[in-house]
């Protein structure tokens, strides 16, 4: 049978199933196949905090959304064109996000009376007409997979578990994906169990062949490669990119990296990743708690390493006192906060941007630190290098504010040329620095950077003592002198405020925008997509995005003042807006959501359109 082939410019697919159904893996493989084809991609995993919630229930639903296109895209997509629902819970949990007309592929084997009852369906939605507005494709995924593996030497359970590969095969056929990388992946994954390699490949091919032969799927789609900058790419998550950025920082600084970390969602993957790269001289320590993790990192920095600690909001709260110590000691330290929804344990696997205030102000005393935030998964690589650069050059703690959305989301990353990465080499102090060269003054500053010398233990003649007690200017001796304390507090503030950071750039292709949308961190994608949608409709709007939250770019005040209205969307209750209003006396409008999910481009478009109408 010859199938019709239709060209699309973009598609959003959501794979949803029970948390044991392997949906993250399925999504990940589909993404990888799509990357091979050269589409632009953006992904969004969404999973419960429970490792295995009760099977078949709504809290146990795990999903993975992938958006791919023949042009450059900024978000994982607002609403899926295709939903793969492995059970009734996955259908129920995701149906509301689908536009009418969307394709729904369901695993009919799981639509049993018992499973339907678990999620409150009295009648099967496959039979009561409630899905009439959608293109429903009922597929007996489990039984067809088991049937396809009848000749294979695998248990029934293993055969059933391969149903995600059947689904992947079907989708790979539907969207004409190259599948060689998936076959290679399966060979690697089950290297020690060849029977599972064969079974999973057979399930994948059965799914592919099913698409090709069944009449239910009459159309096959193609999405042409996107026009992207020439170069070599890989698809990467924010946590992976951030880890590689830290490895790169160590290489470019020619310093050993020491990571002290305590496991916490959603930051643990950085610890896992860096633990694999000991050949770069990286030491990772899983500490007894968050405080020990940063303490060990600070101790390593004191000894001349690039000290790093990675955590999420609850961990930063615990680390506050040690960050203050690092402020007083004036030593380099990188603190990574992969933000999640709070307060308290909150929603550990959901995203939020509500740690900005804590990063900027969450310490006792006047304890300023530098704060920067990546805007997308791939940007985490460069943000990590920038954090290390500031920490090393200015001898200060730097908080890197990632969040769950960029940490677990992925996008294609244009691999940088290693030689083009910033040179982060530093000089340790080696000789006494007093005017007459007789003594070492640990708090005598570089006039340009205001950084004090980094004199590491082991350096003869520079023996000195530092600590959390207030220090006299230059000598570092304990001092309770009022004037000295005032001077030191102001100097520590100036140290951060005078760090040169790049000017903020404004994107206003029409040049006549009267409204500026200002964002920071992971909202870059949805804001950018919303602005594009408005411009496509002939409306003018300007976008600017903050990477440096402390210090802020020197031109920010001027930029803000040039617009009639400034709108600040944030996944918190207005933390940046509050600072902008206080600091620049700009009557900024906040647009705030704390639903644990990123903004959609459509909702921002609607909101901004309202603002534009009222200017």
């Amino acid at each position, binding site marked *: 049978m010859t199938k019709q082939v239709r060209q699309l410019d973009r598609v959003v697919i959501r794979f949803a199933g029970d948390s044991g159904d392997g949906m993250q893996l399925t999504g990940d493989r589909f993404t990888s196949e799509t990357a091979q084809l050269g589409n632009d991609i953006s992904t969004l995993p969404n999973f419960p905090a429970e490792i295995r919630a009760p099977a078949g229930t709504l809290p146990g639903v795990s999903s993975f959304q992938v958006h791919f296109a023949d042009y450059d895209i900024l978000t994982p997509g607002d609403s899926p064109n295709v939903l793969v629902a492995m059970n009734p819970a996955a259908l129920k949990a995701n149906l509301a996000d689908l536009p009418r007309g969307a394709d729904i592929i369901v695993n009919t084997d799981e639509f049993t009376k018992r499973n339907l009852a678990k999620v409150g369906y009295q009648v099967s939605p496959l039979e009561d007409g409630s899905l009439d507005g959608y293109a429903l494709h009922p597929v007996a995924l489990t039984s067809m997979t088991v049937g396809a593996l009848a000749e294979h030497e695998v248990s029934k359970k293993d055969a059933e578990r391969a149903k995600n590969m059947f689904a992947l095969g079907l989708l790979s056929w539907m969207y004409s994906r190259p599948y060689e990388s998936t076959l290679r992946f399966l060979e690697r994954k089950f290297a020690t169990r060849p029977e599972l390699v064969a079974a999973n490949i057979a399930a994948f091919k059965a799914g592919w062949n099913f698409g090709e032969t069944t009449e239910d799927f009459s159309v096959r789609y193609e999405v042409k490669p996107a026009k992207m900058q020439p170069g070599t790419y890989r698809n990467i998550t924010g946590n992976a990119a951030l880890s*590689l950025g830290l490895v790169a920082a160590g290489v470019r600084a020619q310093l050993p990296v020491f990571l002290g970390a305590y496991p916490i969602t959603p930051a643990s993957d950085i610890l896992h990743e860096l633990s694999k790269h000991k050949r770069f001289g990286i030491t990772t320590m899983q500490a007894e708690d968050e405080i020990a993790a940063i303490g060990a990192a600070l101790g390593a920095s004191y000894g001349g390493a690039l000290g790093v600690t990675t955590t999420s909001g609850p961990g930063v709260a615990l680390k506050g006192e040690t960050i203050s110590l690092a402020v007083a000691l004036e030593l380099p330290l990188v603190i990574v906060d992969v933000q999640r929804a709070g307060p308290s344990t909150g929603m550990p696997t959901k995203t939020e941007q509500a740690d900005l205030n804590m990063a900027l102000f969450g310490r006792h005393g006047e304890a300023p630190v530098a704060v920067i935030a990546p805007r997308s998964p791939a940007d985490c690589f460069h943000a990590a290098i920038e954090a290390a650069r500031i920490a090393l050059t200015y001898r200060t703690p730097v908080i890197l504010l990632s969040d769950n959305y960029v940490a677990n989301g992925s996008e294609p990353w244009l691999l940088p040329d290693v030689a083009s990465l910033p040179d982060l080499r530093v000089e340790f102090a080696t000789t006494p620095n007093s005017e007459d060269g007789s003594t070492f003054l640990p708090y005598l500053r570089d006039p340009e950077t205001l950084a004090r010398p980094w004199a590491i233990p082991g350096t003869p003649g520079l023996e000195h003592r530092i600590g959390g007690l207030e220090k006299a200017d230059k000598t570092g001796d304990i001092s309770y002198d009022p004037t000295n304390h005032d001077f030191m507090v102001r100097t520590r503030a100036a140290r951060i405020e005078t760090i040169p950071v790049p000017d903020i750039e404004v994107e206003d292709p029409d040049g006549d925008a009267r409204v500026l949308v200002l964002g920071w961190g992971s909202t870059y994608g949805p804001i950018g997509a919303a602005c594009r949608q408005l411009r496509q409709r002939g409306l003018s709007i300007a976008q600017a995005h903050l990477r440096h939250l402390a210090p802020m770019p020197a031109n920010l005040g001027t930029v803000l003042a040039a617009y009639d209205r400034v709108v600040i969307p944030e996944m918190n209750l207005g933390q940046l807006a509050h600072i902008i209003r206080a600091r620049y006396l700009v009557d900024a409008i906040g647009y705030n959501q704390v639903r644990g999910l990123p903004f959609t481009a459509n909702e921002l478009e609607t909101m901004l359109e309202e603002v534009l109408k009222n200017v």
Partner: protein
Amino acid sequence: MSEPVAVKLTTKDFKSDQEVRWCPGCGDYAILAAVQSFMPELGIPRERIVFVSGIGCSSRFPYYMNTYGMHSIHGRAPAIATGLSVSRPDLSVWVVTGDGDALSIGGNHLIHALRRNVNLKILLFNNRIYGLTKGQYSPTSEVGKVTKSTPVGSADAPFNPLSLALGAEATFVARTIDSDRKHLQSVLRAAAEHEGSAFVEIYQNCNIFNDGAFDPLKEPATRDDFLIRLEHGQPVTFGADGRFCVVHPPGGFGLEVRETASVRPEEIVVHDATVADPAYAFALSRLPGLDLSNTPIGVFRNVDRPSYDSVVQAQVSAAQATVTDSPEQQLAGLLASGDTWTIL
């Protein structure tokens, strides 16, 4: 860093230019003097020695040592020192702490440093009181201690620091007394020679808020009958003419004190600090009574176990040994690992 070269230093070399500001008569002075005069014995250049402390009277110690030093935050010295020690095996890292710093706010870091066997020498000055905050009871104060915060007596049972350290399976555990310089230095010497965590409790008198806490161990009239001086390989006897001894009574779990005349010589325990099972040293740590009678001092336990530092460094070295590329080449390879595609 290259290997340290042996150097000849004197006590004076270890005195910093800072004025010592403990209360006159504080036991800390004696410990400081003992440490300063012991340090030259190490033969390690000053720049390779680091003292890290937390918060409390004892934690001012690093300011007075002309080495590298960090006066950090309350309870966290073991954690900070761990990062330093693991990343800088060429250094000799000492932690100075107190009963509140190590056992109250910093208890977690202490037990984890000990179980890991980080290459740290930890000196715990135990005066059984909070001195810097002016006289509240501490986690080693006796039950019923009357202080500003416990006007009708404290309600909580104290930690026995050595029992705690042994529960964490510390590889080196010792006790000494501020006023006995010779003994203190002998314990420091053994601690310094130990590879891994060395935990040393030093009974220290706070003459302002808890004066005389250890007097029975110091007064000439009582000390010989109260102190059990542990010597590796020697029968554990004490008191005038060795009239008391320590035995392991049949059927019991622990050790007990007897009159030497009442037991057969072969029943007397011969001290062996290298016993692998920490239960023996633990039993020794349980001997003292509330009145400080039967207080052992000396090295309770001294066993070999690879230090955390050495294991971690070996893992890094083993990984690095496989590398032939430059770091930049390795990095380029790492960045391009996994599924990549090229757009022309």
